[in-house]
């Protein structure tokens, strides 16, 4: 596994600029890359290196940095290696390059990113409604969307569970852990 990883790192670094890698135990390897080279690096991995399977496209909301981190997970059945390609885009103005010409099924993930996080994808096919029906307002998976306040305002609650404790507070009481400052805002 070590030789495979070292070989992959040297090949990627020879072909692309501004790539930083992070190694993990086991069959996982991360690359942080610029947004504009995403189609090129994924094509290179698929066509030249045998990473033919797109496992997932995921998104992490870095609210404090004002950025979204998009994670592409690809898998090679020959190397038995998971490669994570990570890139960051601006939260408000960022546009993601479309990769559905590399994998057709990427369209599903891109539509979900559009609907759940409000990320614009360049030339997205069928960019209309996907899973949510008649949704208006902030996309629900963004961290600044207050899901509890929305639920209180939209739905009825049956009385009797007002004394339910926040999980975080229960953990603090038990193990004397500190809540980080940025998380206090979201804690009940």
């Amino acid at each position: 596994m070590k030789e495979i990883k070292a070989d992959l790192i040297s090949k990627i670094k020879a072909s692309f600029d501004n790539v930083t890698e992070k190694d993990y135990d086991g069959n996982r390897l991360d690359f942080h890359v610029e947004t504009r080279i995403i189609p090129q690096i994924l094509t290179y991995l698929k066509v030249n290196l045998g990473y033919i399977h797109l496992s997932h496209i995921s998104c992490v909301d870095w609210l404090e940095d004002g950025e979204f981190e998009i994670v592409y997970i690809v898998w090679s059945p020959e190397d038995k290696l998971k490669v994570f390609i990570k890139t960051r885009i601006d939260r408000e103005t960022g546009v993601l390059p479309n990769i559905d010409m590399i994998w057709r099924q990427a369209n599903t993930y891109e539509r979900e990113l559009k609907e759940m996080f409000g990320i614009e994808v360049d030339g997205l096919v069928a960019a209309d409604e996907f899973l949510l029906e008649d949704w208006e307002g902030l996309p629900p998976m963004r961290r600044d969307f207050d899901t509890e306040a929305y639920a209180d305002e939209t739905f009825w609650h049956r009385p009797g569970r007002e004394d339910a404790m926040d999980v975080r507070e229960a953990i603090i009481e038990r193990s004397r852990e500190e809540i980080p400052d940025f998380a206090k805002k979201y804690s009940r």
Partner: protein
Amino acid sequence: MINDKNSQKIADFIKNWARKHSIWVLAYGTGCGAIEIPPTMTSRYDAERLGVRGAATPRQADVLLITGYLTTKTLKRVIRVYEQMQDPKYVIGFGSCTINGGMYYDSYNTIKVLDKYLPVDVYINGCMPRPEAVLAGFGKLQQLIAEGKANGAQKYKDDHEYYRGNLRKIIGNKYEMPLYNW
């Protein structure tokens, strides 16, 4: 003679007795709770010995089981299904999610209190309720039917505006719901 009080009583008794021993459950799973239905119906717990069986379409069914959480998207379909069912019809709320939201109490997409939208005859508590609890719930429903107290369908007809108003508040005005005609 049918207006005679005593013969009406006897007719009701026979009617309810027949109804309680032939409960056809609509095979419609809304949430994770549907996974408890196969063991309830098959050989180990064998709900059929109590007269509880699966039905293929809403028009053939007597009981609508709401198995777990209901998203706003599913709610529209469930209400259409309920309105298509023919009398006598009953609703069983299955699992904590139908009672007070359960673990989805702060979800943006699931309703918390089922009886705002549908007249629920029996609630089964648990997350998930085991087949024993499901059978106990059916037993309770049979008891209510025998006593003539399982009158959710009548409540739905009487308070139709109330139930539809609550639904409208959740789904907004964009989505078209067909009119309920008996």
